[in-house]
């Protein structure tokens, strides 16, 4: 059985205890093997939505979460992401995340890549090395670092660090990759490399991207969702969204009249 939607969320409501950036009744499906883009002005709930999908909000001051969030596997089975008894570490291995600023851990390049695998219990050196080479290739970084895997990861340039972060998530072979403004700190050339590798990656992964500009949203999106103040205003295939938006607010934002 093939599935069409990787993630299904219905009536998702989330409230922080200090009242900031919450989600108001979000219902949207993330199609499998595609790039879904979530864009909109700051404070609209984009990051919050991503952090619901891999339960990183667990440690934040969240007062209420309600609604439905299901993660489907190839067989058509699904798990309830919001289930309080869920093994979140297993969920996070299936749903990887890359953050706005490159966060390389204070270790070597190799250790950054093997960290997640070793914690998951993988010890075999050949398997680890295989994962390193595959993930670095997928993130278009292998050529640049193959001879210096044991150097501190902090010595890489900003763009390389961010691609290392992507590679680090990919090393775990997740099914979904959440990217929260992954190119906000990068120069145009590095941004281009990251975007190109995303187009390659979507053949095997389901990608949810919060872009750092409307232009990037338009370039990358197979599907696009416009978030405004915690509400999902419009959700459509990318080519329709950025040419003929149906809602006035979306059109205004895309044309730069606010935000």
């Amino acid at each position, binding site marked *: 059985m093939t599935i069409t939607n990787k993630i299904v969320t219905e009536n998702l409501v989330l409230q922080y205890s200090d009242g900031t950036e919450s989600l108001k009744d979000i219902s949207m499906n993330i199609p499998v093997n595609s790039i879904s883009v979530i864009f909109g002005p700051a404070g609209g709930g984009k990051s919050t939505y991503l952090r619901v999908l*891999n339960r*990183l909000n667990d*440690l934040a001051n969240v007062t209420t979460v309600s609604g439905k969030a299901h993660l489907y596997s190839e067989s058509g089975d699904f798990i309830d992401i919001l289930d309080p008894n869920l093994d979140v*570490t*297993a969920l*996070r*291995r299936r749903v*990887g*995340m890359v*953050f706005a*600023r490159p*966060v390389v*851990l*204070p*270790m070597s390049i190799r250790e950054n890549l093997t*960290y*997640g695998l070793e*914690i*998951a219990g993988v010890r075999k050196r050949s398997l680890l090395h295989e994962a390193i080479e595959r993930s670095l290739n997928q993130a278009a970084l292998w050529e640049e670092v193959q001879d210096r895997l044991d150097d501190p990861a*902090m010595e890489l340039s900003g763009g390389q660090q961010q691609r290392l*972060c992507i590679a*680090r*998530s990919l090393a*775990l072979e997740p099914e979904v990759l959440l990217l929260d403004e992954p190119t906000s700190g990068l120069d145009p050339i590095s941004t281009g490399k990251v975007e190109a590798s995303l187009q390659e990656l979507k053949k095997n992964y389901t990608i949810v991207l919060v872009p750092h500009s409307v232009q990037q949203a338009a370039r990358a999106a197979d599907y696009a969702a416009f978030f405004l103040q915690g509400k999902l205003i419009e959700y459509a295939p990318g080519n329709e969204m950025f040419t003929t938006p149906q809602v006035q607010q979306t059109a205004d934002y895309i044309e730069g009249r606010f935000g």
Partner: protein
Amino acid sequence: MRISRIKPESFITWLIKFTGYSAIIFVFLIFYFLLSEGIPVFGEVPFKDFFQVRWYPIEAYFGLLPLLVGSLIVTIGALIIAVPLGLLTAIYIAEVASPRTKEILKPLVELLGGFPSVVLGFLGLLILSQYLREILALPTGLSALTGSLILAGIALPAIVSISEDALDTVPRSYRDASLALGATEWQTIWWVTLPAAKSGVLTAIMLGIGRAIGETMVVLMVTGNAPMMPQGLATFVNPTRTMTATIAAEMGEVANGSTHYHVLFFIGIVLFVIALIVNVSASTFVFRRKKRSERILS
């Protein structure tokens, strides 16, 4: 108009310069005094005499070894207790405790640091030593162990407070990144947060050492003050005597300008050098941390 604005400006500059330099001058004066009173000892006592195992100044036995070993045993004992305890407390406060608990615990720990050490010494003398004597069936409860326990209490607040600050400054994003890779909270603390705060934690331990080795009043009160060389494991429960306690106990009744007087100042120089080494290594770690954080920001 212009002049009246410049005048107080230059006065303030002068004042700041004066206070800044005076701090340096005081340090040098102390150092000079210490040297001028301590150096003459080399003309009066052969250097190898300091390595004797007997400290009995009245008959001119100036063996510093029992005092040095006493200081080291009490300090190391204190650290063996204080470092793991302090580190775990810091991890609890920084990583595990709820914000409410944290708000109560952190000031409490700092309050403990502000306790006059003589009060802790008093508790050690009257309560702790009694218990230790009964539980371990010792001839006296005043021993190196008692000193270590109380000193651990004194070094603990510095270790907890500074390591907690160090753990707290580890960016939230490191933890998120580690959690997002499927690590549990404890794996994250052990493999990411603690290594990232390594230099701050080492600084905390160094300052704890400095605090413990320089402490006088408490060790004078609870260690029993017998300058003895170590004898196996029993050393920890035997009375001992540290360098600081020796100076404090004997300086009051020594003849001014005598050999004994000079030797006491020489002990002061030894302490000064130890403190200097500890402080320099601590600040080296701090300096390294600054450089790294600058690199992260760039």
